[in-house]
């Protein structure tokens, strides 16, 4: 196994995912096999190759005029929220 249970627990914590006891061994095995599989890339000579982040060359971030283009739809958007009060999203208390 290229990843230990502790590794997977750390990854899950970074990813903000709760993983159950039953799921954990499955992820240790399958994530290890994925890491082994993608490790094939380490054998490729890439020297000074420029990393590719965008599939099309010559594209750049477009700018637009700093003008309001969206109308206020907060009621419609917040209709999907689990908990809303006074147009604010409600979460468990963070500061006592």
């Amino acid at each position: 196994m290229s990843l230990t249970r502790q590794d997977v627990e750390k990854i899950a914590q970074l990813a903000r995912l709760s993983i159950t006891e039953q799921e954990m061994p499955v992820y240790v095995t399958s994530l290890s096999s994925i890491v082994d599989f993608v490790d094939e890339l380490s054998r490729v000579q890439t020297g000074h190759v420029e990393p590719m982040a965008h599939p099309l060359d010559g594209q750049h971030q477009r700018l637009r005029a700093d003008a309001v283009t969206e109308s206020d739809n907060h009621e419609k958007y917040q209709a999907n929220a689990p908990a809303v009060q006074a147009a604010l999203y409600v979460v468990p208390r963070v500061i006592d």
Partner: protein
Amino acid sequence: MLHTLSIGELCRKLDSRQISSVELTRHFLARIERLNPALNALITLTAAEALAAAAAADGRRAAGEQGPLLGIPLIHKDIFCTDGVRTSCGSRMLDNFIAPYDATIVTRLKDAGAVMLGKANMDEFAMGSSNETSYYGPVKNPWDVTKVPGGSSGGSAAATAAGLAPFTTGTDTGGSIRQPAALTGVTGIKPTYGRVSRYGMIAFASSLDQAGVLARSAADAAIVLQAMAGFDPRDSTSVDVPVPDYSAALNAPLTGLKIGLLREFFDGLEARNSALIHDALKIYSSLGAETVEVSLPHLPLSVPTYYVVAPAECSSNLSRFDGVRFGYRCDSPKDLLDLYTRSRGEGFGAEVKRRIMTGTYVLSAGYFDAYYLKAQKVRRLITDEFRAAFAQVDLLIGPTTPTPAFAIGAKMDDPITMYLNDIYTIGANLAGLPGLSLPCGFVDDLPMGLQLIGPHFSEAKLLTAAHQFQQATDWHRQSPRGYD
């Protein structure tokens, strides 16, 4: 049989008032009611909205308006936001999500008068190659209901093959239009990255995702892509390149077309499958095209490259699902961290969590250079090889998948075996190239797909080459038994 007619033929019937859009819509709604329970191709049916949209389309025609999609029904993949209609992305996370706006392609097809019948089932967040990761259960292949339809646009593909709609929309991040199109015997096109707007399409891997069409023929796909393609200021990666007239180009002769046969796509391919591709080449040669063998030595590395890049982007994109603003929230969270981790842990399915964790790992401190940066470099090597190939040939050709549809459940325990299903399709996503799959024959009574890949913005060429093949063959006219 209305469901076996082309979009062009349906349009002529609507034009000549032989049928109305309401009648056409009722025909497909009745087929969905009768045939979908065995297929599970739809997550949400919008019958009342469809009949209202059809009546509106009939009104537009009566007022003298014309248009190739005016009054033609369709099914959208449930990854596209549809204003006022549940948009689940195949996930428990969004089971209760009513999209508050339309995706750009939804708006464009609405404006063209197309009538949405419902939302198609799909792998959860488009992560899968068999449509088995859906929260709403697997989709069955209409050619054999014990087999998968492919994925992630499996519901779209099965619905198109079964004649539940004249066409469907899909998305393709690593093969999610082409692979299910191949496995269900329909025609599917993934356009060039940036050709079709991604606005309102729920993101999986933003440097790879692209929307496209699944249809009964290349001619039908040309009509639909025409309505979908084009610049959208709301998508920052949308490219402002004019959209050619795809339908007008379909009959351009193929004389002198140079087709590159991708050598790497035949390594280990079963003889019966490779024979179908060679049969297709004979047809192309009779149409005046010329074939040369082409090699892309780094192409076999596209799967490991993809399984670094795509999960990395997915782990970033899916961080928006936090149980706060929309989507699933766990019961009685004890604090904010508990709310995040349990909402995500319970709301996402197994494969989505696996990919988020893979992505988190390859982006984490100490591993970023070894995995993510390395994969981005190999991605460039693969892209450069495609570019060099297109200096010699007009199109590349090969199989879409290594095998026909496999049994439901056969590959669910081993992610790597499942990932290798996309070995022939992923390259086009990494390089941002357009790819098309069209039916080219049968193996064990299951359809197989021929894949065409072209240079950036060569959709017209792909559609023309596919259309000419379909003028010379009738593989695309075959319907699964019980659905004809």
